[in-house]
């Protein structure tokens, strides 16, 4: 790197030192430390930049601007349409993802199905900390899996059709109905997703995955396929199996 190139780079170095950690400036800064002429130029450039920055930041802000912004912001938020509310936007996004997954499910094999299932479940778990669970059957299931003595990998007394008719949350992923309940255990929130066990290519041992900070484990018993998700990590999931 010659001095001309170093100058070109150093002109983008903010005078307050906020860029000290950026690797792109490392070579040019090192060169300025070695070369006295470049060092003098850089010191002068930074001094002038500091002076300009200080002057621009001294330009007064019109009185009342802050109050106007705050008042306007409240008005804008109050007039937001129902479909612009976060819940509805999240729901719309989830529906779009589920629809696209459904199409993909039809085009890919069973192993890809399970990968897609895991990905969609991780996405679902990441979007909502707690999903609502309704109905007696869902409440009984939540009560069971919340008990510290319940081993999740042991066969669970689950009747999918009863859960569905009783108001349990149902997701349709790739044409498969997946029931979901949330529960708390060991100080963390967990999501349990259950569906009918597929006929082939199911994992023979618990399979862990992670996506955007949410971890999951998939396992099966004779009748069902389960996916449990949480942001507490693999160890927290293993402790419940």
């Amino acid at each position, binding site marked *: 790197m010659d001095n001309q190139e170093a100058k070109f780079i150093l002109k983008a170095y903010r005078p307050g030192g906020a860029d000290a950690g950026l690797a792109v400036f490392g070579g040019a800064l090192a060169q300025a430390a070695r070369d006295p002429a470049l060092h003098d130029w850089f010191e002068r450039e930074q001094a*002038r930049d500091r002076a*300009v920055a200080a002057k621009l930041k001294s330009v007064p802000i019109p009185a009342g601007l802050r109050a106007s*912004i705050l008042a*306007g*912001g409240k008005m804008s938020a109050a007039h937001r349409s129902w479909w612009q509310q976060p819940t509805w936007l999240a729901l719309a996004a989830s529906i779009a993802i589920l629809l696209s997954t459904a199409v993909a499910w039809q085009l890919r094999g069973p192993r890809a199905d399970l990968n897609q299932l895991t990905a969609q479940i991780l996405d679902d778990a990441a979007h909502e900390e707690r999903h609502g669970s309704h109905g007696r059957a869902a409440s009984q299931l939540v009560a069971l899996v919340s008990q510290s003595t319940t081993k999740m990998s042991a066969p669970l007394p689950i009747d999918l059709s009863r859960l569905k008719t009783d108001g349990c949350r149902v997701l349709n992923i790739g044409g498969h109905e997946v029931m979901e309940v949330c529960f708390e255990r060991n100080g963390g929130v967990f999501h349990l997703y259950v569906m009918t066990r597929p006929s082939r290519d199911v994992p023979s041992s618990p399979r862990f995955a992670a996506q955007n900070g949410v971890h999951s484990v998939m396992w099966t018993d004779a009748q069902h396929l389960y996916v449990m998700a949480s942001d507490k990590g693999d160890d927290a999931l293993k402790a419940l199996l």
Partner: protein
Amino acid sequence: MSDDTFSQLVDLYYPSLYRFALSLARSEADACDLAQQTFYVWAKKGHALRETAKAKSWLFTTLYREFLRGRRRGDRMTALDTVPEKELEDVTLAPETVASMDGGVVMAALQEVDEIFRAPLSLFYLEDLSYQEIAEALDVPAGTVMSRLSRGKAQLRARLASRSAASPSNVVSFQNSKTKASHG
């Protein structure tokens, strides 16, 4: 988004956003309008932004887009386009000279810089964004930001020198007489 979060966001960024807007719009009323409009857009759409940490870049990006959307086509400052770049590079200006100027004078000089250089230059001096974040906000490559900062600084230096020369107490040196004549 809660009122508290919105207030915090306003307090953190409205001064820089206003000054950025003032450098672009060159009118206090337009700058206020741009700053307000930016936060209105945030209040309506900002909730869709998952990471609050990205709010800063989002606000500057939105303000710039609102400015581009609102300004008249062809309304572009070209006063310095006719001055050869080499001559701009030769203009020297002591940091002490800048320090002795009024903030409004420095802002006025910045407002005369060609618009294509003015936006990255303002963001650079307000120091809220790195050159990479400026590139994202203005939707140009990072190398282009560096190039525009270099040329924008040269234009600003020439404008400040020109204003300083009008005041007999300030010393502005030029490295050749031809350049001096150009900026007399």
